[in-house]
C-alpha cells in the first residue's frame, strides 16, 4: 500500500522516466492492451465460458477497440485526459461486470495521476485498483481481476520503492499480475458470475484476472519500452 510518493523519482544511474509517461505513452499502453485482448479474445471468452457467460473477450475487445479509436480521434495530450477518455469509453461500450470495473480503474487512475513519472503511474494504478475494489466490493481471494491487479500494484510499488527503473518495475508488476492470475485457478469464486458455481468454480482461471494481467503486460511492453 506504500504510496508512490514514498520514492520521489527515478534513481540516478538509469534513464529518467519523468517525461516518458506522457499522453502518448499512456495511449500506447491502451493500444497494446487492446492488441493483446484482441489477440486473446477467444481465449478470454473461453475462460468465461467455463465459469461465466462466455462474453468477457468479446466485451473487452469491443470496448478497447472503441477506446483506441476514441484516442485516435481525440488524441488528448494530457495523460490524465487519455485515461479519462479510456474510462468513459469503456463505461459506455463494455457493459457487464468488466465495463464498470475497468472503467472505474481508468477513471480513478486518471483522477489520481499526478506528474507523469513512474511514481505517478504507480499511484494511479493503485487508485485504479482501489476503485475496482470499491465498485465491485470484492476482496483478495474472491477470484476476480483484483487478484491480478493487487499483486501487480504491490510489485510495482515495491520495485519503485527499491528504486528500480520503471522498465523493471513494470515487468515486476506484470509478473505479479501473472502470479495472481495463476493463483485464481484453485480459488472458489465469491464474487461475480463464477460465484454461482460454488465449488465448481475451482480449477478454472478467472477471465478478469487474465485480462488484468494483459493490462499489466501491456504496461510493461508499451511504457517501459520508452524507459
Amino acid at each position, binding site marked *: 500500500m506504500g504510496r508512490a510518493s514514498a520514492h520521489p523519482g527515478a534513481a540516478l544511474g538509469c534513464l529518467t522516466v519523468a517525461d516518458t509517461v506522457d499522453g502518448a505513452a499512456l495511449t500506447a499502453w491502451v493500444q497494446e492492451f487492446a492488441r493483446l485482448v484482441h489477440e486473446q479474445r477467444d481465449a478470454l*471468452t473461453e475462460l468465461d465460458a467455463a465459469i461465466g457467460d462466455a462474453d468477457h473477450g468479446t466485451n473487452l475487445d469491443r470496448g478497447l477497440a472503441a477506446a483506441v479509436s476514441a484516442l485516435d480521434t481525440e488524441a488528448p495530450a494530457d495523460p490524465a485526459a487519455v485515461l479519462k477518455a479510456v474510462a468513459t469509453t469503456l*463505461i459506455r461500450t463494455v457493459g457487464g461486470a468488466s*465495463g464498470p470495473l475497468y472503467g472505474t480503474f481508468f477513471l480513478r487512475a486518471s483522477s489520481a495521476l499526478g506528474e507523469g513519472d513512474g511514481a505517478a503511474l504507480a499511484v494511479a494504478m493503485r487508485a485504479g485498483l482501489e476503485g475496482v475494489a470499491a465498485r465491485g466490493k470484492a476482496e483478495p481471494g474472491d477470484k476476480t481481476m483484483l487478484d491480478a491487479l493487487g499483486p501487480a500494484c504491490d510489485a510495482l510499488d515495491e520495485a519503485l520503492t527499491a528504486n528500480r527503473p520503471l522498465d523493471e518495475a513494470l515487468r515486476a508488476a506484470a509478473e505479479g499480475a501473472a502470479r495472481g492470475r495463476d493463483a485464481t485457478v484453485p480459488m472458489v469464486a465469491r*464474487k461475480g*458470475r463464477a*460465484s454461482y458455481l460454488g465449488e465448481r468454480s475451482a480449477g478454472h482461471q478467472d477471465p478478469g484476472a487474465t485480462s488484468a494481467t494483459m493490462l499489466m503486460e501491456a504496461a510493461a511492453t508499451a511504457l517501459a519500452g520508452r524507459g
Partner: protein
Amino acid sequence: MKKLINDPANVVAEALRGIAAAHPELRVDHAQRVVFRDDAPVRGKVGLVSGGGSGHEPMHAGFVGPGMLDAACAGEVFTSPVPDQVVAATRGVDGGAGVLHVVKNYTGDVMNFEMAAELMAAESGTEVVAVVTDDDVAVQDSLYTAGRRGVGVTILVEKIAGAAAEQGLPLTGVAEVARRVNGNGRSMGVALTSCTVPAAGRPTFDLPEDQMEIGIGIHGEPGRRRVPLAPAREIAEMLVEPVLADLDFTGGDGVIAFVNGMGGTPLLELYLMYAEVAAILEKAGIGIARNLVGSYMTSLEMAGCSVTLLKADDELLRLWDAPVRTPALRWGA
C-alpha cells in the same frame, strides 16, 4: 453455430429493428438501444425501467407497455446494458413521479444501473429507486458473495409493480410492492443443453447426451451440479423441492406458479412440466392462484426450464390481474 443472424456483432441492433417494425406501439431508440412505450413519459406516473443483457427475449423489451415497463434497455447478448442506456431510459420515462429500476442481481447489471443512478443524481432531479431481484435458490446467499441471481421473479416484479405504477401508486409504494414480490418469490432452473453466444460461436458448455445441469441461471453459465438426465417428474421435484425448502409458501392466498422455458424447449414440454409442478404443489397443500407457462425469460436456444413460485396476497393477485398490454404479456386490454 446455427442461428438466423447476419453478423454476430450486429445481432442486438438488428433484432431491435425487428422489434421496432413489429410493434408500432413501442418506440425504439436505436442509438441507445432502449425500447420505450410510445407514450412515455406518462405524466404523474412512476416510470418503470428494466434492462439487461439480450438473449433473454421476450424479456425485457417484450414487457414494455401499459401496465408493465415504460422502458427496457437492451445490452449486448448476456451483457448488462451500459450506464448511458439506463440514463437515457430513465430520462425518457420520467413523468415527474420518479423512476423505479428493476435490476436483476448480477454484478454487471447492478454496477451499471448503479453508475447510471449516480449520473442521474449528479445531474437532475429525477428520483430513482432500484429494486434488485434475487430469487434463485440455486445460489447460496451470503454476505461475502455476489448473492443470488435474479431470475423468473423479475417478470412477476415487472408485471405487478407495473400495475401498481399504472394505478397511481407513488414511487415508495411501487418500490415496496416490487420488493414484496421479490421477497416472496423463489426460483430454480435446469438446463438440458447449453446455449451458444453468437459472438462466441460455440456452446458455452458441453453437456453429454445423458446429463443435465441443475441450478442454472439464464446466461448459459453452468449450474450447481451435473446430474443424470431424469424423467420430468423427478426434474420437477429437483426444482420445486429447494424452492419450497427456502420459503414457507403455505398460508397466503395461494401462489403464482410460473413455469418458464429457456428458449429451446417446446411448449408441449412446458405444459407437461407444469402438470408435474402442479401435482407437487397440490401434495404440499399449496394452492395455485395464478399461473404462467411459456418461454418468457430465455437463455438463447438453451433447452430447459425454470420454476418460480410467488407467495401472493390479495393485493398482489389484484395487481397481477390488472390489465397489461405488451408484446409478450397481454390481458384485459
